[in-house]
């Protein structure tokens, strides 16, 4: 029993990490309708950026989170304008390869600049264990990531529902052809959404930096899981992404313990395929979006 609670706690916290990484992806996925294969590499760039700020400027990674998110917003918007926008009406094949190309370039650029070594942000505080009411022992950094993922999701949902811009974004998601009739500049919305999605990655990177070292291929470790989470939750659904992330986190934790650690990916890919077959729109997705 004791061990089960610990596994659930671990799984939930891991789910928090996945959620943090996935919300940006699902936003872009749902609204711009582009699968960003470079998402993992954005995370990698963010981890390096946090490491540089922490080691060179002595900035606390959590303090670095906000400026990093802002910088990433502009990078994302820029990338959308320069590379994705011209391809908006192209075949999905083309869009996928454009982002694959960006990802390859970023990963290799990092290899050039930083070599294959691990770069770790030194924040022992984040790695210390905290006792949760005597039922589980978890690290503080993971708790922070967990709460930030919820806060970020909540903030985004509020933004989409309560603000004018957010409603415009939702309008574009619902009907990209009708939105212009209501005076919405669709292309601007795309750039902003891409920026917000990328900004989320920047935030995620800063929060995760004390937990995960940076190296050039770190993005590929996370990106497939993020895709699974996004599809599971339903394309474009932020709530879905969080719940999908929690499910995958729990599956990883429980399957790793009860089945075999080297087969846990098999288990969640199997779930992923099952969901795609039974409910292609995902748990919280809107039918027809697939």
């Amino acid at each position: 029993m004791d061990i089960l609670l610990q596994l659930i706690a671990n799984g939930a916290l891991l789910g928090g990490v996945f959620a943090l990484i996935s919300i940006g992806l699902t936003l872009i996925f749902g609204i711009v309708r582009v699968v960003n294969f470079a998402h993992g590499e954005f995370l990698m760039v963010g981890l390096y950026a946090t490491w540089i700020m922490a080691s060179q400027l002595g900035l606390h990674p959590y303090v670095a989170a906000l400026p990093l998110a802002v910088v990433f917003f502009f990078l994302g918007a820029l990338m959308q304008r320069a590379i994705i926008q011209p391809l908006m009406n192209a075949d999905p094949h083309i869009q996928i390869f454009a982002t694959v190309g960006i990802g390859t370039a970023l990963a290799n650029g990092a290899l050039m600049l930083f070599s294959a070594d691990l770069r770790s942000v030194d924040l022992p505080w984040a790695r210390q264990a905290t006792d949760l009411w005597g039922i589980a022992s978890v690290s503080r950094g993971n708790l922070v990531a967990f709460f930030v993922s919820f806060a970020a999701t909540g903030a985004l949902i509020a933004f989409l529902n309560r603000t004018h811009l957010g409603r415009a974004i939702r309008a574009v998601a619902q009907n990209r052809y009708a939105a212009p009739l209501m005076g919405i500049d669709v292309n601007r919305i795309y750039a902003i959404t891409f920026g917000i999605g990328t900004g989320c990655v920047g935030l995620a990177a800063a929060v995760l930096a004390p937990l995960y070292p940076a190296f050039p291929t770190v993005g590929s470790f996370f990106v497939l899981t993020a895709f699974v989470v996004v599809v599971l939750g339903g394309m474009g659904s932020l709530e879905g992404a969080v719940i999908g992330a929690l499910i995958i986190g729990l599956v990883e934790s429980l399957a790793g313990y009860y089945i075999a650690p080297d087969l846990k990916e098999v288990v969640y890919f199997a779930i992923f395929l099952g969901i795609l077959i039974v409910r292609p729109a995902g748990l919280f997705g809107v039918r027809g979006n697939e």
Partner: protein
Amino acid sequence: MVAIRRRPLLGGLAAAAVAPRFAAAQGGEIKFGALYPFSGGLALLGDESFRGLEVAVEERNAAGGVLGRQVRLMKGDAVDQNQAIGEVRRLMSVERVVAVFGTYASPLAFAATQVTELQGVPYFEMGAISDPITERGFRYVFRTCPRSSDFGAATVGGIVDALAPAYGIDPKTLKIAILHEDALYGQTVSGFQEAQIRQRGLNQVEKLAYSARSVDLSSVIQRLRGVNADIVLHTGYQNDIVLFFRGMQEANWKPRMVIGSGAGYSLTDTARAVGPAFDGVMNVDFTQFAVNEQYAPGVAAFVELYKRRYGSDPRSGHSLANYFGARVYLDAVQRAGGTDKDRIRTAVLATDVAEGTTPTGWGVRFDERGQNTRVRPFLLQWQGGRQVTVFPAQAAVAQLRPQMGA
């Protein structure tokens, strides 16, 4: 003319960058291939391995070269198997190398050796550890470094001969768990560890594999904790070693000892990323630099040469292992008195060097299959931020400390 001759002494980088054709006409040179992964994911230790070879060659050249000629290394960048085949073909046909040195990574060695064997070009392996490389009946493939099975034997032997005595208990009472990443290195080494444990009648309580791309090892740790493992034998890469130790910290649990295998545990970067928890962690690896000079004469001199040449400390023992191997082979070619493959084979197999007389402490005696039988990895331990040799006793520079972590 003079400038070209001196280039290998001045800078390997420049030598590598210069198109080989210009120098090909130099009659006074003898060319060898150097096949390593210089780019891609394996680049760091591939390059480190090459440096050992390069230092050995420059040392040899300064002392007059081989067969009275200056040795020139032709680099081949083998990122993957396909690339390894292409590069080794280029080295053989375009550069006309006498033999090829390599490779650090086993898949690359498998691919390249079959090509060289069919062409009858000797292949000098100095870093790839997969056993079957020298078990395929090839005549011109030789290996100076220890194999996976040697790693397995050294790890388990270390428990029996060094760790259990340090605890002052019977090794059979220790609960041993094996943990490994599921790529080639982890899967082969752990297989031999398991066989050794069974052979010696020890108590193995768990064997767990995980994907090398894992981002979370907490469930693994819970399982180890569940079986209450005393000793964890872990074969992993840098990233998952860091995850493993951070996970143990989070779970507030650790075994009495972790014995790692190989390069991931030897890198200072890993130790830095893990922090104080890494102190006391043991490792089985190629000879490292904190080794008894009397058992490994020349190791300090190598570090000195390395520092002068590259301006930093060696990043891992791979350079030393390659330095050792290169000296053995260059010496054999010298004794062969020519570059004919069968004369080289005879000379290599005739090599007889006692243990404790080389910079790695390893001896040399090849079996018919081309495998050096007088090598074994040593038992190392992280003490005060340095990795020191603790076993065998002749090579040790420090006492084994039976506790782990800060």
